[in-house]
């Protein structure tokens, strides 16, 4: 074990001194932040105010203005004008990005409001103008002799409200509560998912590392001091720590940005540190151990990763299989696909993290069976990977074929 730790320390130090590792360590969260914030900046930037002239014959705009300003729906820079439509046509030839809305008495009565758009004015102004629809309708109805009560009745939308039998009393509040509940579950789920993703990525570096060790022919020198088991364990521990460091850096960079953007609406940290997180992280860590043992064994069979055959390439894809199941599982987190995938060790970590993030009631029996299957699989795979590693790491000059690997496994 002490020797494993020496190997682990070496792998950690070696990577932390490696420029390409450091660059990807910091670039990944920065790219994430860019994707997270830039679209918002753009959409915010597009809503530059449009110049809108309003011909306000009946004083409707004056009434509406305080309401509109308060809600902040419109990005209009409104100027009330007394010019009529015809004379404005000339003005809009000059001011291409402006618009003119004619709220004259006739238009209001027949419901055809003329909007004059300059050449470059945004089409959005038309749809934004729909905010005037309700007040105009009101004026029409009042003019037609309806009372205020009649109008209120007409304006009252008809709603079909679902009421669950067992939760009848709380149905009205639960809508809001359900959303926060879901969020409070998803936040730890996302966190565990990021942890799993990061350590699986660093787990793939194990593959690189084992294969590189073979290529550089250092393995035999190392093995004259430590056993193959020490070397294998050391690599697994080392890359686990690297994965955790990676998560730490990512989270450290991303969290402040997330808190800054959504912190006021969602108490992210409060949702994150809940007891359920431990189970989710357990799945993430077990998932890592599973993939790491496979990769370390596989890496020892390959001298040159770029010439790997279909077999090794296929094995490398295993951690991405859960992504294929993402759709069905999210649609029906208690469905058959989700349940089966929870019992297959190669998919269960990611699938269970997904499911537990959205299921309200945790299927504890499934969780326990799944954990047991995972642990047993890791134990068996570690034995098998050890056999492959032991022989593979000392074979020089060629990649092992599946047939050879099978022979090593049986010996």
């Amino acid at each position, binding site marked *: 074990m002490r020797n494993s730790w020496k190997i682990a320390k070496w792998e950690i130090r070696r990577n932390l001194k490696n420029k390409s590792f450091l660059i990807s360590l910091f670039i990944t969260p920065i790219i994430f932040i860019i994707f997270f914030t830039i679209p918002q900046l753009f959409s915010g930037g597009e809503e530059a105010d449009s110049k809108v002239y309003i011909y306000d014959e009946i004083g409707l705009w004056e009434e509406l203005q305080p309401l509109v300003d308060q809600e902040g729906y419109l990005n209009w820079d409104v100027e009330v004008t007394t010019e009529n439509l015809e004379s404005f046509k000339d003005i809009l030839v000059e001011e291409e990005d402006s618009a003119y809305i004619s709220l004259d008495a006739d238009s209001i009565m027949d419901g055809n409001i003329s909007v004059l758009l300059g050449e470059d004015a945004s089409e959005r102004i038309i749809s934004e103008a729909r905010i005037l629809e309700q007040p105009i309708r009101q004026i029409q109805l009042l003019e037609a002799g309806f009372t205020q009560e009649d109008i209120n009745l007409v304006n009252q939308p008809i709603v079909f409200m679902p009421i669950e039998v067992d939760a009848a009393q709380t149905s009205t509040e639960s809508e809001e509560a359900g959303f926060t509940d879901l969020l409070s579950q998803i936040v730890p789920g996302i966190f565990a998912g990021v942890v799993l993703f990061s350590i699986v990525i660093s787990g793939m570096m194990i593959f690189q590392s084992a294969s590189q060790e073979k290529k550089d022919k250092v393995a035999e*020198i190392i093995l004259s001091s430590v056993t193959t088991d020490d070397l294998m364990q050391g690599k697994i521990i080392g890359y686990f720590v690297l994965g955790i460091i990676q998560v730490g850096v990512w989270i450290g960079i991303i969290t402040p940005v997330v808190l800054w953007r959504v912190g006021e609406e969602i108490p992210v940290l409060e949702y994150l540190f809940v007891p359920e997180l431990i189970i989710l992280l357990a799945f993430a860590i077990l998932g890592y151990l599973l993939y790491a043992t496979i990769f370390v064994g596989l890496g020892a069979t390959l001298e040159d990763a770029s010439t790997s055959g279909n077999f090794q390439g296929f094995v490398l894809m295993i951690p991405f299989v859960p992504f294929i199941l993402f759709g069905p599982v999210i649609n029906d987190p208690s469905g058959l696909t989700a349940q089966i995938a929870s019992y297959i060790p190669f998919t269960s970590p990611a699938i269970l993290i997904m499911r537990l993030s959205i299921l309200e009631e945790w299927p504890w029996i499934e969780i326990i069976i799944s954990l047991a299957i995972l642990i047993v699989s890791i134990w068996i795979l570690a034995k098998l990977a050890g056999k492959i590693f032991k022989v593979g790491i000392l074979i020089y000059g060629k990649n092992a074929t599946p047939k050879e690997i099978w022979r090593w496994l049986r010996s």
Partner: protein
Amino acid sequence: MDKVLSVEGLGKSFKQTRVLKNISFDVHKGEIMAILGPNGAGKSTTIRNIMGIMYPDEGSVTFHNHQGKSIPRSKIGYLPEERGLYKNVKVMDILLYFAELKDYPLKKARERALAYLKKFDLEGKENASVEELSKGMGQKVQFIGSIIHEPELLILDEPFSGLDPVSQEVFKEEIRNLANNGTAILLSSHQMNLVEELCDRLFMIHRGQKVIYGSIDEVKEQYANFKCTIIGKNDRITLEKIPEVTGVEQNEYASVLYLPKDVNVSNWLKQLPDHLDVHELKVDRISLHEIFIHIATDQDLVPEVGDVDA
């Protein structure tokens, strides 16, 4: 002499193939012992069994009083045949890593590393990245890595392969130094001249079995028989009838006659028949090199003394 390593009755099979059979030898303190043999003879397998990278099916490896898995590997230095270094790390980092794996104090390791780098003409390279080194420099760094922890037993598998003559001299010099300071050294090599120059004893192996084992002097005395090479067309029967000839090897014009080591050459020459066709005639001793070639090419022509090949 102090026995540092003793190998007894070593046997190993891979599947049905028997790669080692009944290999036994010792390595003593302060001596340089060579293990020789053609490619695939089992040298590296023997060494890997000693290093605990593999474990033998039969027999035992004893280092001082330890056997098998209890052998303290921190006391042994090893330079494998297939060797290399991590590419994108500093020379000093990798040397300290090797020292750490052997539980050698890092401060001392750093001093030793600097001293050896200087000795091997690599002063100032300690902070260079391994990928910047030439092949020869890399081999020197590997060599330093194998002795950084002051091993009691140093095992070198083909230490001279790929070295230029200058580096070869440097390595030879250092190996001799180490032996003089009491390190037991086991090395494998193909280069017989180097072995003859450098080693005290040798163990020759072919097809996983012992062929020759003894001190260089003993071996030379035992095997340094005379041979007479005659260029000319001669009948094999005629040649075999010449007294004291223990073996004949012929191809078209040239014939080689093997003679015992105690033959009196000038007397023997007088006994040559008159009708012999001689264009050229040469008498010399069989060298280690030739013994090696004969074994490697499976010509069973290393004549046992007194064994007449008729």
